């Protein structure tokens, strides 16, 4: 108890130190930045006031009294819209009486009243001084005239605080990204640092504690732990040999005892996590290479020299579509290439192509070349993903396929969390070319990992290769098509529509900045990343796919309903959170179930080929998402569209349950592996 308290206390201290350090840096920056920002802000305010004064003086120079000037408020509003750092404008007469007061729409109600009450005051209250700085500019008409009035321009004293608040939010996001990065790296480095084997050793001790002797110690080495583990392994092996030396047909009680404690079979090996962890990091790095360039790719493409007949939106859209199109087309070809050339060569080739294409993009000064580079990148990127998924399925054939898929999906989502923010910062500070180079380096690092990876052969004899006949067989597989049409495609359609279209437009309609969009999308990916691993493991442990797919679909439907029936930012939070949760819940189980449904079909379509076709159809469904929802939004509005999506997802889940509820626990996966207990 004392030791546990000590461990907890140390963990708490470490967490406090980390948070405290980060917040201390933010406070230091605030103190440092206040003077500089205030200085620039004052200069801006004076320049804005001067520009306005010139306009007003022009009218006054024509002999119009300041009290008779019309159209002043629209001019003030126009300038407030252009210069968001200004809090209010006011015009006073020569006696200092307020004639016009125009606040910024973003001004809080309390500050609005305070400014309006004291704008004309010669000695404003401390409360006013604490909130605003005001610049008074005389209005004369001409340089020789007397002062006919005053223009008062106010800006917030706490402008830097608004920036610091934004910094704190950025820091929380940065800490999240750092945590995700560290976890991804530790998944790879963990086995090499002995973390995985230590955790397996704990599982081994717990099994022995409860009398299960079917495994030996996973630890080696001359250290205390290794020696203790080896000593226990020797004792367990001695018992096993004694039990197994008994002749059959006699000593029933001793054989029964041996069976109870797992001593009749050879010792079960521990799952080596090095290969899957290497594959996972390779997937993470490859996806990261694309996510780094995602924040600015559309703008970069739109600014290139392209055909003048194409609008800037078309220049951006075609470049993006070329990537997605070749990505989708690469999916069905994965299984055939893997069988012909082996996983190691395929992964090395694909990651090398991603790296080279990213580097070639640096020199693509023409839009057409950029589109070609993006198309090549998309194809290579798609190949890396389909090769990796297939390899992970091969490695996990005997234990935990859904868990393996959760690992794959987790790596993709983790890169989606980290990449855009890092890429956005890099492009701003280091430039677009440097970011492309960094992106290529990520893919090159993935190539190194692919080169270290041994070839992963298929554990079962390959089925019929990809052909029109196998495609037709898949399309005739009613169970698989039900799963695709009722669950997979609607889910992907909803996810892409919500993330790419509904949320950004809803946030823009609310008048909020793009950073809120980024945080909402981050919430989706975070929910996905946190839950998908758990859901995959649980699905494997329970040997159940349908309940995960159905529950995931219903959660996604609930999210769409919450987004469609609510208002404001919280409804969007519910939408992104529940949609991410639901998709994470069903994702791994759905992919594994699809391959199992294909394999169980009497037509005998290969699971690996089926995976490629499944991904192609799923991606096409995802591409339709924004188009379908844009049409719905245009005719029915955003909220009705979300409600319709929710109904479609719920209906699809229920149809899946009714049609496929009995086709559950497929594949006959063996009993639990020792590592599954950890």
């Amino acid at each position, binding site marked *: 108890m*004392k*030791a546990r308290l*000590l*461990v907890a206390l140390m963990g708490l*201290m*470490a967490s406090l*130190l*980390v948070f405290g*350090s980060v917040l*201390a*840096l*933010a406070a*230091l*920056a605030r103190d*440092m*930045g206040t003077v*500089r*920002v205030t200085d*620039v*802000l004052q*200069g801006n305010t004076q*320049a804005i006031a001067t*520009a306005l004064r010139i306009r007003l003086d022009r009218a006054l120079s024509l002999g119009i009294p300041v009290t008779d000037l019309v159209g002043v408020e629209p001019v003030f509003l126009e300038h407030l819209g*252009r210069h968001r*750092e200004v809090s209010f404008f006011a015009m006073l007469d020569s006696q200092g009486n307020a004639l016009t007061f125009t606040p910024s729409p973003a001004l809080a109600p309390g500050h609005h009243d305070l400014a309006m009450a004291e704008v004309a005051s010669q000695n404003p209250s401390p409360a006013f001084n604490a909130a605003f700085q005001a610049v008074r500019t005389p209005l004369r008409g001409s340089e020789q005239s007397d002062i006919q009035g005053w223009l008062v321009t106010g800006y917030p004293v706490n402008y830097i605080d608004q*920036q610091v608040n*934004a*910094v704190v939010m*950025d820091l929380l996001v*940065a*800490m999240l*990204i*750092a945590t995700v990065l560290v976890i991804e790296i530790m998944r790879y480095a963990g086995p*090499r*640092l*002995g*973390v995985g*084997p230590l955790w397996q*050793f*704990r599982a*081994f001790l717990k099994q*022995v*504690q409860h009398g299960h*002797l079917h495994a030996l110690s996973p*630890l*080696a*080495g001359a*250290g*205390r*732990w*290794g020696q203790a583990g080896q000593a*226990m392994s020797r004792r367990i092996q001695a018992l096993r040999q*004694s039990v197994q030396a008994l002749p059959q047909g*006699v*000593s029933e009680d*001793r054989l029964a005892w041996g069976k109870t404690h797992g001593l009749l079979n050879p010792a079960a090996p521990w799952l080596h996590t090095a290969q899957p962890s290497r594959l996972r990091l390779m997937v993470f790095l490859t996806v990261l290479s694309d996510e780094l360039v995602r924040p600015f790719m559309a703008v970069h493409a739109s600014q290139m*020299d392209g055909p003048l007949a194409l609008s*800037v939106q078309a220049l951006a859209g075609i470049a993006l579509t070329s990537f997605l199109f070749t990505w989708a087309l690469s999916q069905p070809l994965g299984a055939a290439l893997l069988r012909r050339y082996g996983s190691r060569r395929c992964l090395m080739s694909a990651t090398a192509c991603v790296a080279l294409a990213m580097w070639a993009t640096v020199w693509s000064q023409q839009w057409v070349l950029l589109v070609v580079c993006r198309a090549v990148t998309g194809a290579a990127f798609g190949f890396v993903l389909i090769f990796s998924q297939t390899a992970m399925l091969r490695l996990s054939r005997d234990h935990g396929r859904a868990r393996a898929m959760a690992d794959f999906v987790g790596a993709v989502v983790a890169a989606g969390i980290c990449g855009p923010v890092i890429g956005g*910062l890099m492009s*701003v500070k280091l430039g677009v070319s440097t970011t492309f180079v960094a992106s290529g380096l990520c893919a090159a690092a993935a190539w190194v990992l692919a080169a270290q990876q041994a070839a992963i052969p298929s554990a079962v004899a390959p089925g019929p290769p990809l052909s029109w006949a196998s495609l037709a067989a898949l399309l005739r597989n009613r169970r698989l098509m039900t799963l695709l049409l009722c669950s997979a495609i609607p889910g992907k359609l909803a996810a892409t529509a919500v993330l790419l279209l509904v949320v950004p437009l809803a946030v823009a309609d609310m008048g909020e900045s793009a950073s809120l969009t980024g945080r909402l999308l981050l919430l989706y990916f975070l929910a996905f990343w946190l839950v998908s691993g758990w859901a995959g493991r649980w699905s494997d442990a329970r040997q159940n796919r349908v309940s995960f797919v159905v529950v995931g679909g219903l959660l996604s439907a609930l999210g769409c309903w919450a987004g469609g029936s609510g208002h404001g930012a919280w409804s969007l939070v519910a939408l992104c959170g529940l949609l991410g949760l639901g998709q994470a819940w069903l994702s791994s189980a759905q992919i594994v179930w699809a391959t199992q449904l294909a394999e169980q079909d009497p037509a005998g379509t290969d699971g690996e080929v089926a995976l490629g076709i499944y991904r192609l159809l799923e991606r096409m469904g995802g591409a339709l998402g924004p188009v379908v929802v844009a049409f719905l939004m245009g005719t029915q509005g955003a909220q009705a569209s979300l409600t319709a999506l929710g109904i479609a997802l719920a209906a699809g889940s229920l149809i899946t349950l009714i049609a496929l509820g009995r086709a559950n626990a497929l594949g006959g996966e063996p009993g639990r592996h020792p590592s599954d207990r950890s």
Partner: protein
Amino acid sequence: MPAPAGLLTWMTVAVTSFAALLFCATLLISLRLEKALTDLVQDRAVLIARQLADSVEGGLRVGIRPEDQTENARKIDGLMDRDAGVLLIALLDGRGQTLVQRMAGTVVGQKPDPVTAQRHLARMSGSPTAADRVSWSDARGIQVVISVKDATGLVSGAVWVVYSLQAPQSAFNQSIQRLGGWSVALSAGFAVLVLAGLALVRRATEQAFQKLAASTAAPSDSRGWPIFPLPQALGTLGRLEAQWAELCAKADSRGRP
């Protein structure tokens, strides 16, 4: 089979992660500060460009082409004199050619590129809803190009302003230096704390192992083993060995093999 990593490795991982986190925080904070200042400075550049553009458009509305407006040079001089951060102001015609231009004394060779200007003018006049302004930052500074439209709304030229990024950049550099120094100090403190913590854990583990080795009774005391139930596992293993020995003894006594 792998073995657990040593104390030094764990400390390196922990301290490196902490230092990396602080470095990222330093970079992020400094970039945010720079961005706040850049936004303000860009706003100033846009204001200056718009002032000149409004003036030129005023002349266009009464039918005077920009190249025929004689006051533009004086107005540009006035704008540059009022603000020391302006590096260049140029008035361009509809083909992107420079009509009037002034550069700050310290600037060399910063003329607007006609090809780039033509591209921006083409984009700004491409459709009625096209943006009337383009802005970006590069090594030269903040660049703002604002279209100048005649009475019918056609783009007849542009104003190009380059504004110095000295204020945001010096703020960024100062922030990096100061916060970077603090990050190093905090990382050193964290390293000491981690070292102390790991040493405590190692000492506690050694003591627990020694106590376990010295214990002659069946090990079952779990104190000192919060995470790894080694005494309990050894205790169970010992009991199972005793059970097996008892079963074998019973079988032997009945004459079974």
